[in-house]
């Protein structure tokens, strides 16, 4: 492969988004939610069409993460109790995870990649809980998807990425900074643009796009700040890995904006530790089995 001409973000995403498309079911789900006459029953029946997804959503809904007191048996129950948008967001996360397969193992260990993503998602969700944000699942989803741009780059520019990763291991700037130097864009930007192309709502795509550049948080500064901080926390805890080996610098403005103090950190870490392994098992058990 020749690298004289680094492809633009658009070119990069164009190719990937056609090959690795979201399952059709997700767009059906969204359409149903937006339909003025659709009811909860309609949504439940759409989700129920995908047996694997249904099982995983129900597992997730019954996990300690949600902490509902009694067992949620059906998707209908899940939708009425967990919430419509929440179920949709969970479904999105799971769909995206399914969409990326076949990335060379030597470049990235997908298991480690999703572990990092999940840790970030959990951290974001727990942070948002503390901030009393509404619809916590969008934070969870944004966390899971925040490094999806990296997957695109691994698929389309595997050699360059390998070089960068090796370079970054020897020190110097952080990986995302090297990406910017080399390509003129970083994985966050790639991820944001991909998600936008998939018509994911802006309050998920924007935080993903700016999670290494929170001052440019645009319309969703709080969401971007939380995601940025969650990413730092996940790196610091060394739960999984997506290529970057060092902990990114925490933006001071983020710390200020979230009104956090050192007292918040210890309980947060404790909560993440408490549910991380359980959630990993719930989400990846069968995927691992499939491989």
């Amino acid at each position, binding site marked *: 492969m020749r690298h004289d001409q680094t492809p633009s973000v658009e070119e990069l995403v164009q190719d990937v988004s056609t090959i690795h498309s979201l399952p059709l079911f997700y767009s059906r789900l969204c359409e149903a*939610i937006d339909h003025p006459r659709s009811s909860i029953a309609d949504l439940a029946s759409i989700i129920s069409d995908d047996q694997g997804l249904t099982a995983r959503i129900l597992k997730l809904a019954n996990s300690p993460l949600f902490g509902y007191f009694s067992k949620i048996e059906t998707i209908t129950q899940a939708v009425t*109790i967990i*919430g419509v948008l929440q179920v949709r967001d969970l479904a999105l996360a799971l769909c995206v995870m399914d969409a990326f397969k076949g990335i060379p193992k030597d470049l990235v260990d997908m298991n480690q990649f999703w572990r990092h993503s999940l840790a970030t998602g959990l951290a974001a969700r727990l942070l948002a809980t503390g901030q*009393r944000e509404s619809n916590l699942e969008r934070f969870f989803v944004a966390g899971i998807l925040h490094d999806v741009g990296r997957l695109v780059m691994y698929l389309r520019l595997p050699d360059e990425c390998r070089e960068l990763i090796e370079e970054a291991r020897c020190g110097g700037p952080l990986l995302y900074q090297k990406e910017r130097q080399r390509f003129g864009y970083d994985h966050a930007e790639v991820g944001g643009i991909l998600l936008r192309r998939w018509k994911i709502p802006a309050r998920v795509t924007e935080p993903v796009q700016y999670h290494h550049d929170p001052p440019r948080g645009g319309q969703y500064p709080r969401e971007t700040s939380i995601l940025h901080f969650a990413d730092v926390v996940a790196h610091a805890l060394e739960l999984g890995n997506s290529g970057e080996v060092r902990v990114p610098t925490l933006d001071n403005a983020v710390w200020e904006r979230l009104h956090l103090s050192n007292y918040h950190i210890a309980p947060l870490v404790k909560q993440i530790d408490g549910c991380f392994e359980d959630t990993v098992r719930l989400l990846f058990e069968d995927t691992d089995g499939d491989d």
Partner: protein
Amino acid sequence: MTTNRTEESRIALLQERVNFLEESNLNYLRTLDVVTACSELQSDVYRDKDPSFVLKAMFEQLQRLFPFSGQAMYTVSPSSEFVLTVCEPFSMGGWLQNEINAKIEDGTFAWALNQNHPVIVPTLSGEDTLLLHVLATNSRIRGMYAGILGTGHLQTEVSSLNALSTILIYTAYAVENAELTEMLKEHMQNLENRVQQRTRELEAALVRAEEATRAKSVFLANMSHEIRTPLNGVLGLARILMDTRLNQEQKGYLESLNVSAENLLCIINEILDLSKIEAGKVALESTDFPLRDFLVKSMRPFELRGREKGLAVQLALDDRVPPHVTGDQVRLGQILTNLVGNALKFTSHGSITVSCQLEGIEAGRAALTFSVIDTGIGIPEHAISKIFEKFSQADSSTTRLYGGTGLGLSISKNLVELMGGELAVESREGVGSTFHFTITLPIAAAPETTAEEEGELVGELRPLRILVADDVPLNQLITEKFLSKTGSHLIDCAGNGREAVEKWAAGSYDLVFMDVQMPEMDGLEASRRIREAERQRGGRVHICAMTANAMKEDGDICRQAGMDSYLSKPVQEKDLVAVVRKVAGGKEPSPVAQHHPEPEKALPPSDVEVFDRDDLLERLDGAEDLLAKFLRMFIESIDEMLPELERAVREMDPTAIHFRAHTIAGSAANISASQIRDLARDMEYRAKGGDLAETPSLLAQLEEAFGRFRGMVAHEVPEG
């Protein structure tokens, strides 16, 4: 056909699509309308304080989104309980409470509290649907909304659920804003109250502080009074004792006593001075005085003291220094005395130079630099900044070595600053120190007369009639003694102000020494009464205040009460003399002989020696009528005392002889009977020395002399 059918089905499909879009459009418009309508909740909240009004308005809007058969709002009470606040229809309350209780029990309620979205669960019967939504902001949970949907809950439209969430969150913020506004108002009210309260407290504190300051001044004045009164006694008695016959050892002790007492007085004065300066109560006087003469004279005592220590104290007076200037002579003297005193204290060999240099003259004002240069121990560099602080010396061992309060420099510095200068010091340890300051003083013209100097001479004055008003007998005695040294005055005493006024009214006095603080009637009041009475009676007696309150205000107060002059206790002899001299109006040096016992007395006594009538009359200011009275008093007292003296001589009791002879000598001196006086004094001294051999013969001579005296004055004193 088939194309037709396809056409038809396509038209139908399109029709359906159009219907759908129209419906969507309507639906969105309705939702938007509902949300817009809710924005008015905010303004309602401010207008109407009752939140149930707002909640009911919200219910109406929600009713447009869902066909609720009932709606209710539970709000969090101050005791953190969920209380049913609004229920529509009202009749449903009981049933709804039952449903909610069930949901609280199974945990749904608690679950819903933590979700910021609608939670939809079936009712107990399973026929209806219960929709729960928390009413919460980012900061806190304010309540729980409950809605009952009659029909199957699964038909609930998803898009409307979002709108419901939006409205509830919005309402929560509206309610919270209203509450915050209310709180803000309350806080502002509280703040205002608190500011008012604080202001009152501060005002009260200010009053208390002022009272405390007053109390401090009074305390200071009282303390100084309390210390000065006994000190007055000590100093006075020491002076009197000095005049008695003492052996060398006693004399030494007495001198030490005197020095200690003077030092104590000096310290008290310094403390008072400093507190006055600090209180800004020192006003510099502005009088003309002969600067050059003043400096020369001021240095004299130091030259003497320096000589004793083997130091040369010299004055380097610039020829150009103007002879007369206007300023505060006393304070300038105080500064120089202090600096030179320090220099003497800290210098053991070498010299002390006081210099006064003219820096220049501008607009009739002379800039003068005063320097005191010594060759003493010097001041360590680290201590230089500290020496001007009160109560501090270069180091604490200095205090032990050299004594002093450490107030002198502080006072001097303040005084120099009051004069517009700055006291500076250059010093090298072991080499010496130089203190200097520059002040500008207006140049004054030389006055015509310089009579003042004559005042230094001590001599007997024209006898005056003097009234001493003092409640302390000892002070009366001391004042009397001092006064009697200046001449043969007629002295009466009064124990309080009332007595003083009475005595004044009965007699005619030239001078009244008036203690300010006395029981029954104080000196101020007494003076006022005397001045008032004088307005009818005519004449004006000189009243001199005597007070131990050396505070600033005293002078003014005394003047206001009509007093003419002012002495602060302990009274210094020279001050007292100055007052007497001023009143006596001139000095008439009387025969000096009176003071010294004549060694040779072989010649038979002349009449004048027996009784000098002229001398007595002169001292009585020519009052012949008093002469008889005095003579009779004298004869009566000698008549009483002679038998006592005889007994003492018989018993050979030196103490008693000494005492009796002393009394007789004093009385005789007062009445101008010099022969009696001399004999009695001779006896007194011999008795004191333990030499009693001559006493019987002296007693005989004394009795003879007294007989002669009686004979001489017999015609003056009509018997009866």
